[in-house]
């Protein structure tokens, strides 16, 4: 499996598939029983590489007796960020995750969602080249999720790689450039999101549709009639105007032409069922992995 630099990479899989274990292996927190991996061009666990990585764990918890500002200062220290930069780093992180007004409150008084925001702030310190987010929105409300999407977008804009481990497929669908699907410790598929969710059909609403229309549509794909809607799966994008012209020529009044596509959830479920596999190939990956536990 390869994660190209500068992309937002979704790492998906059912519960127990090995997503968090993979993340821990990549960060040197767990020991592999076999295989090898490289992160930012270095061996897994390399200290210099870890300085360039930000990490939000799935099981996040921070010192309850410290303030948010103090937790961030501790991680500035641990990440060996030069002391003169701490204030700016902390201020930016607090602002990004929406905790500026709670900066001097004890973490013990924070809700779970606020602690997750703090964890995200911790992961962003020092402008890391690779940000590993393990279920970053699990404790967040819709506003928080939207904020995280914005933060991930900003990270991509400045060239950082984001490794997003999540089972919230709608979130992944919105932010990821590429996804890998893992099942029982094995990558079963890796695709660009645009390829994975390629439009796969069209729905046409028209008055007076009948069997002849379905026959005509069947020449372009697999058609079926659903009330006023003609649904055609597998039709090529270029064939849609031709089909519409044929229907108009047959006297049908067209009210709507809606491209249809599988959701990520549908693709996810179908891939898990079929075990479709393909592997990306990029010259300068942020992460390459082939570890086993």
């Amino acid at each position, binding site marked *: 499996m390869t994660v190209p630099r500068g992309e937002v990479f979704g790492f998906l899989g059912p519960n127990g598939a090995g997503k968090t274990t993979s993340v821990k292996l990549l960060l040197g*927190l767990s020991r592999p029983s076999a295989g090898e991996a490289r992160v930012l061009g270095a061996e897994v666990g390399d200290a210099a590489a870890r300085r360039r990585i930000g990490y939000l764990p799935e099981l996040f918890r921070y010192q309850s007796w410290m303030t948010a500002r103090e937790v961030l200062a501790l991680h500035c220290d641990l990440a060996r960020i030069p002391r003169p930069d701490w204030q700016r780093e902390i201020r930016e992180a607090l602002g990004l995750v929406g905790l500026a007004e709670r900066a001097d409150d004890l973490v013990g008084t924070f809700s779970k969602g606020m602690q997750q925001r703090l964890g995200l702030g911790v992961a962003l310190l020092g402008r890391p080249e690779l940000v590993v987010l393990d279920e970053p929105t699990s404790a967040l409300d819709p506003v928080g999720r939207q904020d995280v999407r914005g933060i991930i977008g900003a990270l991509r804009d400045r060239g950082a790689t984001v490794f997003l481990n999540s089972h919230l497929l709608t979130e992944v669908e919105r932010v990821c450039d590429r996804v890998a699907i893992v099942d029982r410790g094995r990558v079963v598929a890796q695709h660009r999101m645009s390829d994975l969710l390629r439009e796969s059909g069209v729905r046409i609403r028209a008055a007076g549709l009948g069997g002849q229309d379905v026959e005509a549509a069947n020449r372009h794909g697999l058609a079926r009639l659903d009330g006023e809607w003609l649904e055609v799966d597998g039709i090529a994008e270029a064939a849609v105007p031709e089909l519409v012209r044929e229907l108009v020529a047959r006297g049908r009044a067209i009210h709507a032409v809606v491209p249809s596509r599988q959701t990520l959830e549908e693709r996810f479920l179908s891939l898990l069922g079929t075990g479709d596999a393909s592997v990306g190939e990029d010259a300068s990956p942020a992460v390459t992995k082939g570890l086993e536990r």
Partner: protein
Amino acid sequence: MSGATSILIIARLTLSEAFRRRLLWVLVGLTGLIVVLTWWGFGRIAEASPVTGPVQVLGVSQVTVMLAFMFSFVLAMTAVFAGSPAIGADIESGLLLAILARPIRRSDVLLGRWLGLAVVLVGYALAAGYLELGAVVLATGYVPADPATGPVYLAGESLILLTLAIVISTRVAPVAGGAIAVVGYGLAWMAGVMGGVGEAFDNHLLRGVGVVSRLILPSDVLWRGSAGALSPTDTVLTAGGVDANLYRFSPFSGSAPSAAWLAWCLLWVVAMLALGIVLLRRREI
């Protein structure tokens, strides 16, 4: 990141936690209360029977050693209860995940935790020990055989137990780990008593029990050193009609540990910390 810097960061974090969680303040407050109460108590003893003759000196010395034993117990428990959750609880809660993802080694975390708690314990042992001795001297005029080193041995004993608790905490949950360390401390003390009986009565088996237990957990070596330092001098004992050699084998007395035993204590701490590092490296985080 250099190891020393990482260790100091974690040690500073541990010290801050001890302050912020009020561990130090509780210890300082309660110790202040104990010092005042014992100063008052020793004063009443001196009023009832002025500490002038060897018998009175012997009586006051025994109360002083009992007081030291209480402090030894408090220090041991503090070491165990502070050390037992030092690693395991942070792993279970997930606190260590974010820390270990940084460029820091597991050994730095363990040594930093040990160093931070060691500073708390040694600082407390020395401050409380000398304050308490000062109260005894002021109230009664009794000056033990070696007042300067008595609290130092107590501090050393607490480091032994802290090391044990932290090493156990790399693999065992805090409550169970604490229980193991407390039982170990109790057994080591009791085996030391048996060893003393063996020495007094020249019983090889009991003497062997004492030696083996001190090799396994040398906390009693340092406790006996402290008790010996706080006992009267041989001159006073002899003047009181006590066989000084025999007296040194009683559970609440002792003598300065040999250089070999002190070296063993040091080696034991180093070896145990090395073991803790190996255990932590192999643990799933």
